[in-house]
């Protein structure tokens, strides 16, 4: 989902920057509020940011398709630090990946943040909230968030490319052409991300529920209290 420079038009890049900025703003507000409530929130946020940086640059080989791709880590991060704060983390992560690793473009940070941080993070978080609201087990809600957040990231990334480049080809057809470039490799990795998200959250809930204030409800929250 790391779209490089020179692929999207400058107008499209500016539009994605604008869309991204509109959602990063509430993230900054959320970080300020939570940091005032909880002194440990900022270091925790920094550590989660580091985790997202590493996870989203971690290329794993998928022998079925003969190519490599990476998980995102944003659904897990959205659950841990909050969905809006996640958008800020994602923008910072993608900025550093673009500047220092050449992973994704500089002009496309807005588009990449929109797909990974906003669409991926928020969709995963929304599913987590819905499933937890329906009293689904923690591992199931977390796993579903990881799976869906990962796939939505790549669906939106393919849509961003299709919106700019479909020309005379029907938008949906071009969208699916781009998504089929990602999909076969990404599907197994989405399953890996689901397992990873479920295991990490389950482990944190069991061993360090104090790191998840406001995240856990019911028996897990009582254990941490």
């Amino acid at each position, binding site marked *: 989902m790391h779209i490089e420079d020179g692929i999207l038009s400058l107008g499209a890049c500016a539009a994605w920057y604008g869309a991204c900025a509109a959602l990063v703003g509430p993230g900054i507000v959320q970080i300020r509020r939570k940091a005032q409530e909880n002194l*440990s929130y900022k270091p925790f946020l920094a550590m989660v940011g580091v985790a997202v940086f590493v996870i989203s640059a971690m290329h794993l080989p998928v022998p079925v398709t003969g190519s490599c791709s990476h998980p995102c880590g944003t659904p897990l991060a959205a659950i841990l630090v909050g969905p809006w704060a996640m958008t800020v983390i994602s923008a910072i992560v993608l900025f550093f990946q673009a500047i220092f690793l050449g992973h*994704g473009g500089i002009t496309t940070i807005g588009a990449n943040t929109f797909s990974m941080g906003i669409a991926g993070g928020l969709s995963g978080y929304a599913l987590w909230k819905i499933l937890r609201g329906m009293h689904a087990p923690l591992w199931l809600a977390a796993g579903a968030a990881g799976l869906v957040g990962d796939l939505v990231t790549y669906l939106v990334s393919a849509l961003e490319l299709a919106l700019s480049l479909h020309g005379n080809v029907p938008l949906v057809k071009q969208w699916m052409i781009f998504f089929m470039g990602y999909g076969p490799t990404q599907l197994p990795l989405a399953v890996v991300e689901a397992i990873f998200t479920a295991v990490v959250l389950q482990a944190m809930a069991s061993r360090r529920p104090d790191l998840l204030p406001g995240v856990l409800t019911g028996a897990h929250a009582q254990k941490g209290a």
Partner: protein
Amino acid sequence: MSNPSRINQPRSEPFFDGFTRAMLGAMVVFLLAIFASASYMGHHKMEAAGTDDKVNNLATTVSHGEHHPFIDLPGDSQLGAFSIANFFVGIIVGYQWLRLFGKPKEGQ
């Protein structure tokens, strides 16, 4: 968050406790999976390229224009830039540590 009294206590648990063993085990499993996958792909002459690159190249064929980094540094100079920035940002973050992460003073 973490209990300060717990942090200050000398730890009696062995170094290779359950958590450390689980992390090392997970790392070994992941590394074995990567080596096995890479070996399989190498044996079958698969490229093992990143899907991001594949789709970016596919998009380039559609857009009929070459893509290249907005700022492109040749060779190891990119590593040099990364190291320099990390070095100075690390010093600044260390210098400003209390301002960034410390407890606000009364009235602030």
